[in-house]
């Protein structure tokens, strides 16, 4: 059974939302940072056991708070990926409050928090870093290596159906 789901990617600018989308949809990565204007819409079909989920990914330009994102971008979203940059504390300092706001704004919409750029840390550093985060992310990912990217989107697909 084929289902279409709108997924929005939120988080500060430069955290790697576009890179994650690019890795997920096109299996590519570029070191070059390119700012997103407005929103870029991409589509990828994820095959689950019983469903074929057409994920329409809305890669939204980065903002320090989702309240600065136009409401129409969030309208009808079935799932949210909130991306933080593990190398920049400013991208996760208010994470708990931001997620609480989002849950309030879009009730019953699954949100996955992803700590991106894990490839820049050792395992020990990641362990130490996890203790400093205001809340535990669903996954630590790397758009560069592809680590946990598909797994995270697939998990979101499962939660949306």
């Amino acid at each position, binding site marked *: 059974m084929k289902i279409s789901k709108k997924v929005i990617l939120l988080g500060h600018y430069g955290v790697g939302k576009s890179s994650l989308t690019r890795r997920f949809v096109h299996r590519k990565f570029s070191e070059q940072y390119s*700012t997103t*204007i407005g*929103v870029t819409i991409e589509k990828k079909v994820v095959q689950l056991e019983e469903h074929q989920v057409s994920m329409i990914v809305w890669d939204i330009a980065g903002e320090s708070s989702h309240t600065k994102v136009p409401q*129409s971008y969030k*309208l009808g979203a079935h799932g949210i990926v909130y991306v933080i940059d593990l190398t920049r504390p400013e991208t996760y300092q208010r994470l708990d409050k931001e997620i609480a706001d989002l849950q309030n704004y879009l009730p019953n919409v699954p949100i996955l928090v992803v700590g991106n750029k894990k490839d820049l840390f050792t395992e020990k550093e990641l362990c130490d870093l996890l203790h400093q985060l205001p809340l535990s992310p669903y996954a630590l990912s790397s758009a560069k290596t592809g680590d946990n990217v598909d797994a995270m989107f697939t998990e979101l697909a499962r939660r949306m159906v």
Partner: protein
Amino acid sequence: MNNKLEQEKLAYFHRRSQYVVFDNDGYVQDSCQTLFTISSSVSLFDAIPFLEAMRDVFVQLEVGTDVSFLCIKTDLLGREGYFNFFVKRHEENKLTWFVYDLTEFYAYLQPWQQERNDQAIASEYLRLQQRANALEKELLQYRNDELQRIEQMKTVFFSQVSHEMRTPLNSIMGLAHLIEEQASPSLKASVEALKTTAQHLSSIVNDVLDWGKLENNTVEVDNKPFLIRPLVQNIIQSFQSGCQEKGVMLEVDMDEAVPDCLEGDATRISQILYNVLGNAVKFTHEGEVSLSVETIGVHKKNARFRFTIADTGIGMSEEEKKRIANPYAQANDQIHQRYGGTGLGLSIVQKLVERLNGTWTIESQPQQGTTVMIQLSFPVVEASKVETAPKPPAFQRIRKVLVAEDDLINQKVLRQLLVRWNIQPTLVENGKEALACLRQSRYDLLILDYQMPQMDGKAVLQALQQEKRAVPVIVLSGNADQVILPQREKETTLVLSKPILPTVLQEKMILLEKLIPASPIDLQYLHQITDSQPDLMIELMDTFVQQAPLAIQHIRSAWQQQDAKLLHQAVHKARPGFQYIGATTIEQQLDRLEACTQQPKQNEQFEEIIQALEKMTQGAINQIEEEREYLLRL
């Protein structure tokens, strides 16, 4: 606006926009097909991701309402770009979708936004870097503070342990001195070894304590005129026999231009030279050790000297040289195992040289030897200014000493020393007993341990001050720096660090003796003629106590009879008794009395002299009785 302009405007928007009408299932009812071509047979919800994503929303959109989406980058059936979308429901089954292509505009904006974000991210990283730098600095400071704290704790710990060691060490050294004098020839060598061992332990304790003081900057420099040549010779002399035993040549070369007398802290200079020369001798097993002193510059009355201590010993590598600069460190582990030592010697030298505003360098080659060069400056002074060490005379005025000391071995050592110096010691174990004794009887000196049970030295000093008892005091302490003296008693109270050396105790007692008023008697002669035999001394004292009042009575009687001849005989007969007990002031009174007998009509003066004589005789008798009691207790 005229028609032509209106046409141009419409043409401009027409090229960039498309209007699509579709039903609730996404099938196109109408489209201008300007930007992309849509087939009416395909649902837009299947063909265009944007609409696919918004299907649920648009299907439920109420009639007359619209939603706008600005700056959407997507693919519209092969046309990729940035678009603004407006979606409105006109009827139950009719939605309009207005697409406006703003690719040119948004593509132009993108670099501006990119620059803004790049700068913001760079600022974030800069702030992070600054914070990391500040934290690193804080951590370094913390580590530094921690290291210093540990270092200080180590120094304090070693100093405290060393202070604790001083008291028993004092006892060992004191007892060794006493045993040495009475030891049989067969025991002499063992006693000598005991003394050397105790001396070695004492030097280790002193090193640790000195290091503590140097670390805390509490080392005081006592600059006085001193003779450099005897100082160097004495140091060389002390290493002579050790070098001879090892078959190592020990040479000294004193530049003739070195002045005889300089002004500086001779103790500290000796300490520096002893340490460096001691190391040189310790680590040299063949060849020679030399000490040379030369003048390298004179400016006005200040001269700069270079002391060079060179050896042909085991030497050190560059790495080992670096290690020995650290306190408690030795060149390598084998050195400690083979030679022992605290590893403080060179650190102390380094600090002392710095304290004396000098410099030092060390050159060394493994298996070649080591050369240490020390440069120090001193004012040159006249040799006459040098104080020669006085020979401790026998005590004239200190006859009775109260010793307040809880340590039994120290008590024994002090008792024997005092007895050897013909002084009566009274021993008590705490401050309370000491005060009780002082209230009951007169003492010439109080030797007071600073740390005692029940009532310590500090409390005794305070009590003495309150009771206005002007007894001179020698305070004994393992840590002389911690002794606090009452301000007004500083001249009559001296502090002596443990372990006590007999010569140092004697020197302090000589200083205090000058402050004690002359005693009416001096039993030195009595000691001589009786060979200090208590029984004989007591017998003679008893005779004096019985005879002296009678002798004075005879004098008074002769004077009352106005019999000059009888008076002369009475004075003459009284004199030897007073001579035995060394009552020189009474003798002087007798001289005055005799002179009076030669001059008639001196009645008033005569009465005055005889009254003084009676009073002084009674004083002498009182003191003799005290001495007698002491002898009886022996």
